[in-house]
């Protein structure tokens, strides 16, 4: 990993995600700090990244590195944690039943991923699918269900849905720009995750110790 990537690109990308993830455009634009639960989810995601090898903290912080490099590494880890938390906060609906369901879903997903111990590629693929699906559900489906504009049939369906769910499904109406900004934040976050310093294959006496992913393929990595 180049010093520029570690000292400039990764922290700036992570902080940008932390900024954009909290931005809600409305009458007045406001910035939402991540909730405590989002911080917990962020920490779990950091654990998943480390366990899968998508993030190798010893390549950012270790005794063998100079002090300045360690400071840069620490900043990357801190900014990454904020970005993780803010990404979950951005993808969780603002209120009602969907907020609870999304929160529980994210928690179970993180715990399940920790238990399954997937490799780096699978974790990144899984996160892409999960965050993409959460984005579609939150910013496309729920927004459409909560949008007061529309034809008579749509409003009748909304009233019926409100009645069935006791008003627990609809969300505060968001400015369309919020969805675009969150989309950019998520894409940036996924790019950042794939750019993190990954765990290198360990070598010992000229032999390569196989990682779980490589064992599945029953061949030495190239």
């Amino acid at each position: 990993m180049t010093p520029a990537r570690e000292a400039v690109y990764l922290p700036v990308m992570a902080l940008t995600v932390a900024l954009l993830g909290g931005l809600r455009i409305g009458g007045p634009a406001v910035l939402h700090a991540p909730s405590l639960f989002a911080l917990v989810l962020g920490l779990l995601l950091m654990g998943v990244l480390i366990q899968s090898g998508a993030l190798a903290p010893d390549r950012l912080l270790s005794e063998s590195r100079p002090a300045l490099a360690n400071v840069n590494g620490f900043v990357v880890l801190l900014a990454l944690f904020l970005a993780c938390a803010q990404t979950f906060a951005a993808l969780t609906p603002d209120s009602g039943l969907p907020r609870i369901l999304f929160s529980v879903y994210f928690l179970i997903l993180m715990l399940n991923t920790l238990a399954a111990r997937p490799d780096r590629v699978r974790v990144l693929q899984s996160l892409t699918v999960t965050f993409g699906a959460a984005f579609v559900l939150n910013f496309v489906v729920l927004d459409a269900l909560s949008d007061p504009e529309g034809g008579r049939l749509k409003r009748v369906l909304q009233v019926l849905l409100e009645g069935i769910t006791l008003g627990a499904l609809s969300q505060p109406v968001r400015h369309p720009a919020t969805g675009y900004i969150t989309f950019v934040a998520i894409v940036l976050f996924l790019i950042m995750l794939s750019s993190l310093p990954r765990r290198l294959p360990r070598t010992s006496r000229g032999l390569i110790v196989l990682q779980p992913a490589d064992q599945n393929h029953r061949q030495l990595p190239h």
Partner: protein
Amino acid sequence: MRETVVRVSGLAITLAYAVLIGWLYARQPTTIAEVTGGLSAAMGAYRVDQQALEDGLRFFRRDQFSEARAAFARADPGQQDALTQFYIAYSYYRQGWGRLYQDDELYRKGIEAIDRAIALAPGGRIVVDDPTLRIHTADELRVELDSGTRRDASDLNPLRIFRERK
């Protein structure tokens, strides 16, 4: 050597960016004007538009409060000047004041403005030497606005109709 330069520069950029984000979260500016105003105020480069402030005061003294606030907003787009915010709060007070009732919505906006003014003033102390006003300090104005939004037994006092607007 080059690596050290890159690392130190990166650290400086990251810290500056983090401070900016922290400031945005703490201050919650709602417009670009507030962002630029806040940043220039932090660097000591913020200036109120004196002409617009004079216009606002002229409207204010003629009881044209909406016009006055439009001019004050032009004078202080970043909401960084305590005096201008004081006059904005005062305009909400005077416009919302009624002999029989107060406009709660205007009073609430007045409280927001006076709180901004107090937060901006050094030591939170604002004293305005303007003979056309009957309230000269931010603390008095804050109490006046706050008491206007409260509901209590004094609201039923028939002698209230004899009180005067300050």
